[in-house]
């Protein structure tokens, strides 16, 4: 690390007065003290309840079939795909923060990357559930979509974007998990050393893979971490590009558009940063981590949100423009139908959420006030979900032949599954907070004034 004083004259990335020891104590205390704020119990209980609901919804789905949802012909995809794309998109911010910002040497990523990466993993887990359960026969889809050798010599159909999706998402999940875990190793060792309970010491000891903090360890760690960051970087772009192919390869008006890959990637980062803000703002309050997740972090994230929001807005506008400019009657009708058809409230709410609302972020006071920022982030979360609703539903429900136009109405089971995955996410996330340091201890230590002493070691 650069031994010179921080080059950021703006607000500090860590409040003054912290030492290596205080940082370590403060972060590891959340895990090791054994005492959790009441709100942790409340939120986890809600999460577990919703998990139960998810379990019920999936069980009934497996018993009865996808017909319990609102999907039909023509709208063959419904909530499941909307949720899938939404969750996958949310995941992107984590990878972006941990990989791209690392490569770009954005030091401010340090205090948010750990839980952002956790968010990525849990979001991808929630997302990964949907492509599987949305199929008619998930017990077969679970392995028939993979190219495994079999006596029949049957392979997946590699021209299908769904197969690309399988590879993209599973790669993404694997790399993200590795990246997160590798980044955790030094902290796991810290926890091992600080833990008082023998069981915990063994558990953290096993997980820390014999980390002793030697120079050789650090050197290898830096190598692998950089390599993984390099590996993750294209994934940030590729995964959502491939997800967008699920639509763009189809010939459905509203899907079949070349703008989809960049537009989807921007949307994913947009949604992801909104979600990181949604998580960070309450967390720093509950656990008193304002010292580590400072206003500067929030402001930077708000700026990224604003930027990607503008890209997304550009995407909407070009979609609308080309709908008319293409002179294709199906495209023109599609965009007109989005704006004025039976689902018009969804479209205009989407415009409100994703285009109008983030404009507040031009104002510095909004960017630096946690509550308004939180509200903007929540609106963007909703907006990005609506975006997927609009793309999936309004494109399908009125396509080429007026005779086969139809409507889509989600059922109770659609909602239960969707809200259930929110519960799964909350549960996993709060268990993560309880069991692992939500902020990277060793990287935070590098932020402390001690680390900037000449000769002081970086970690």
């Amino acid at each position, binding site marked *: 690390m650069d031994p010179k004083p921080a080059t950021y004259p703006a607000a500090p990335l860590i409040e003054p007065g912290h030492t290596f020891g205080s940082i370590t104590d403060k972060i590891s205390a959340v895990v090791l003290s054994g005492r959790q704020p009441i709100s942790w119990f409340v939120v986890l209980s809600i999460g577990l309840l919703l998990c139960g609901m998810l379990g019920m919804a999936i069980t009934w789905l497996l018993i009865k079939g996808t017909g319990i949802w*609102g999907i039909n012909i023509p709208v063959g995809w419904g909530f499941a795909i909307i949720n899938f794309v939404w969750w996958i998109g949310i995941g992107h911010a984590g990878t972006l923060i941990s990989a791209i910002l690392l490569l770009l040497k954005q030091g401010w990523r340090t205090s948010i990357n750990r839980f952002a990466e956790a968010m990525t993993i849990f979001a991808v887990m929630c997302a990964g559930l949907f492509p599987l359960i949305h199929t008619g026969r998930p017990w077969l889809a679970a392995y028939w979509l993979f190219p495994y050798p079999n006596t029949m010599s049957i*392979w997946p159909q590699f021209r*299908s974007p769904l197969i690309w999706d399988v590879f993209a998402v599973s790669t993404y999940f694997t790399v993200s998990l590795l990246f997160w875990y590798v980044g955790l190793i030094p902290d796991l060792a810290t926890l091992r050393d600080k833990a008082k309970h023998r069981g915990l010491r063994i558990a953290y000891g096993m997980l820390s893979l014999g980390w002793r903090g030697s120079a050789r360890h650090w050197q290898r760690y830096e190598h692998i971490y950089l390599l993984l960051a390099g590996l993750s970087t294209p994934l940030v772009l590729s995964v959502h590009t491939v997800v967008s192919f699920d639509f763009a390869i189809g010939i*459905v008006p509203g899907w079949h558009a070349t703008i989809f890959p960049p537009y989807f990637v921007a949307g994913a980062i947009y949604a992801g940063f909104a979600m990181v803000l949604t998580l960070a703002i309450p967390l720093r309050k509950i656990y008193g981590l304002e010292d580590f997740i400072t206003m500067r972090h929030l402001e930077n994230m708000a700026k990224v949100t604003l930027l990607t929001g503008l890209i997304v807005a550009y995407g909407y506008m070009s979609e609308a423009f080309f709908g008319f400019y293409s002179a294709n009657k199906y495209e023109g009708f599609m965009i007109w139908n989005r704006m004025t058809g039976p689902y018009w409230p969804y479209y205009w709410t989407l415009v409100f959420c994703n285009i109008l609302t983030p404009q507040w972020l031009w104002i510095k006071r909004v960017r630096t006030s946690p509550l308004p920022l939180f509200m903007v982030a929540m609106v963007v979360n909703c907006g990005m979900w609506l975006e997927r609703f609009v793309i999936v539903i309004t494109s399908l429900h009125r396509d080429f032949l*007026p*005779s086969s136009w*139809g409507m889509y109405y989600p059922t109770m089971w659609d909602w239960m599954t969707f809200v259930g995955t929110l519960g799964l996410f909350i549960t996993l996330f709060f268990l993560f907070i309880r069991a692992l340091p939500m902020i990277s201890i060793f990287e935070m230590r590098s932020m402390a004034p001690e680390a900037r002493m000449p000769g002081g070691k970086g970690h």
Partner: protein
Amino acid sequence: MDFSAIRSRLAGAEGRLYWRSLGELADTPQFREYLHREFPEQASEWNDPKGRRQFLKLMSASLALAGVSACTKQPPEKIIPYVRQPEDMVPGKPLFFATAVPFGGYAQPVLVESHEGHPTKVEGNPEHPASLGATDIFGQAAILTLYDPDRAQSVMNRGEIRVWGEFLTAIKSALGAQRGKQGAGLHFLTETITSPTLAEQITLIQQAYPQAKWYQWDPVARDGARSAARQAGGAEATHHFDKADVIVALDSDFLGCGPAAIRYCKDFAARRRVADDKKEMNRLYAVESTPTLTGARADHRLALRASEIEGFARALAGAVGSGGAAAAGTSVSGRDAQKWVASIAKDLQAHRGRSLVIAGDYQPAAVHTLARAMNQALGNVGTTITYAPAVEVNAMEQLASLRELVQAMDAGQVDVLVIMGSNPVFTAPVDLKFQERLGKVGFSVHHSQFFDETSAYCHWNLPEAHAFESWGDVRSFEGTVTIMQPLIAPLYDGRTATELLAAFIDAQNGKSAHDLVKEYWTRAHGGKVGGWTITDANGQAFATPDAFWKHALHDGFVTGTASGPGARGAGSASGAVAASGASIAPTTPESAPRTPNPAPRQDASASEASGSGGLEIIFRPDPTIWDGRFANNGWLQELPKPITKITWDPAAWISVRTAQEKGLNDADLVELRYRGNTAKLPVAIVPGHPDNSVTVFFGYGRQRIGRVGQAADDQAKQFDVFRLRTSDAPWFGNGLEISKAGRYVIARTQEHHLMEGRHPVRTGTLKEYEENPKFVAEMGETPPRALSLIPAWEYNSYRWGMAIDLSTCTGCSTCTIACVAENNIPVVGKDQVNRGREMHWIRVDHYFSGNPLEPSSIETHHQPVPCMQCETAPCELVCPVGATTHSAEGLNDMVYNRCVGTRYCSNNCPYKVRRFNFLLYSDWNTESLYPLRNPDVTVRSRGVMEKCTYCVQRINFARIEAKKQDRRIQDGEIIPACAQACPADAIVFGDLSDPNSAVTRLKAQQRNYGLLEELNTRPRTTYLAALRNANPELEPSSGTASRTEH
């Protein structure tokens, strides 16, 4: 496990004690509980009140088993291979048997496909002049009724199961009392009968009981036509559309319903088919009230209220110069009707001898008489229309007949009433109070296929055998007799009408239907009865009665029995009855002979029309479940009704303007008040319906029939339109009041009926086509063939393709139901249809064009849409597991086993012809439905996509046959189910690699176009544009043919 309990139980047991498990041996409460709740899943399902479909699935297994155990003793279950194989029986190879399905008393001649002894599919009899190979929806659906587990299954007396012998004893004692008074208390009520055997039996009964009375009642009787025929001397009209160039239909749905509809459709289509080298077609004017398929196919359609038709007919008759009827033609109300009369009359005059005026079955006799007079004046008699003696036995005005029966019942004259087939408690006009008066009958017998409303009020209920279980005979509309042969032994305790009547005839007691029918025809063959002249196809007499019998059964008809102008057969068949003694009292009230010329008579209903205010009510049989007799047939219930595409429910049709005036929307529930009676119906706004008029349909609101057809709740019971029908105005009348009474959920398979400028159906006039044959191609764009990344497919052998002629397609939906029958397509129920999950592989799309506020300007377009089997199929590309692939012969195959159900293929299909098993739709529980299934087609499970395969099983069957003979499959050898059933021959299938095949030649036509071909899907199913032979005088803006589309 409680061993002490077991020991004590064993100790206390006497004799040999069998036990299946230690639990049973111990006889623990837990085990008893387990036994009690052996099917805990279903047990809890019972309490779920929702879902007819679910209910059906659950109930069926138990009921079907109950039925099986009720009728036959269980056969010993030994499996034995064929040591000597039955003649012609090759396992896996179907056999076809010729028989007929009676509908409205008339034969629908069919061939029934039978797999190892169980009938599975109905096809038309190509040799029979009334079918020529086609069927209608009722014929196709007959097979489902055969296996319906809800059919009446056993003889019942006052709710208790009896055996046939007990009924015979009871009827014998009842007849004993009748013998003394010459049968004065003996009354029969049947539907329309054409069967010579039954006719003779009735004559015999009449001889034994001279005072016995015979009535007929069919709620959809053709009383108007009959009455006009009687006035003109008894000869009924047969129309020859194959000779007619200009046709005027006066509220006649000759293409859609009636005993001759299939043949008429064939003939009409033949005259309408246009080719690049034959640019001429017939012209059809439809002057009609309720929009029908005939009106949809018409070149010009004038929407009039039903009561205005007679006035129009009078004016037209005046204009073509047939009698002085024009004087009464004052009621050609307003608008441009005068222009229509003049133009049509001019056109008719220009086509003397090649024109045809046909009156609708539901119009009064006066209109029929006018039509007769016009045809006479136009010189059409003998060419496009012929008259022949009625095919019906003792044709009578059935409404009057029923009224007379009711009077007799009221007067206490009816001791014994035998109701055969008819369901008068449900269908009789409400003012006759049939149900109430039935109570005054001492001994009532009801012979029916279902335990229905009438059965509930009769003392004895006798299950009627299904047509495919019966020996019998029946005549088609043009007189040809079919001897019906059974395909299967009666599944339940059913008897045929012949067997029932034999119980009243001493000489025939105890004889089987087979013997009775065969005896009759043995004598008839010898010329001893009926006056038939029976010859073989070469005009030679048969050597022996047996040779004749075999021949007749094999062919499915008896040559020489058609009633032509000079045919003796028909006249003498009914004549035999009349001659046999003044007898079987002709119960027609108006017996005064009338002049054949149209007397300017004001009909009761017509006079009323000009009278009181309110709306006009028009009664019609339901397009799919008719008068309710098919209410328990899931295929017909789920078949979208023409024009509205509503399934499972009736609707009151009103025009756009009337709906606006009354403040009504689609699917509003309205209360209909008419002559003191009320009913409720959901509203369907139908562009093209005449203003100030409401069409209602019979058949729904069934109180009692079966789990599919029975009204689900009190509200649905109010859908019974028979409650509104009075005997003085059976088909239309004035004075209807409607008011909104809530909302109702209607399940439609198509919500949007405008083309949105996309031209899925390309239409034009004959003139446009003559002037510029390329106009069809110019309506769309064809992208260059090279516009694909993926290399083109190569074909070494067959390339299958299909062409559908939209000029001849009437939109009758027979293709849909034929496909359902052939491909084991499940019924999903109203709820699932409402969610957009119907399973039909071929659907009939329907579009309107024209000004919705101007009913006569509405054009209706139909388009059957099966899978297009695209050359560059969007579905194939996106399936992740390769479950839908391109075959070596160009088919887009669906591999059910491989499908995991991502539904991406359906999303990417621009035609939306793919169907998904969102739930377990195939009924795996109802055992009685197992033998219904086509063994050559997979029964799909849930989670699997399915779609049209061009009937690949038929392709493969033909391929195997051809390979065995080492030849190529010939053109016409493979006919998919839809094409085979089509009465208009609008669907043609064949090999595109054969330049001479019918389909290749059709596709070479200028009218040929691909649906959405601008997407470069290169569909193999293509369409021939719909042409309209417009009369320039009646075109809205002369010169420029404006296709107004919305």
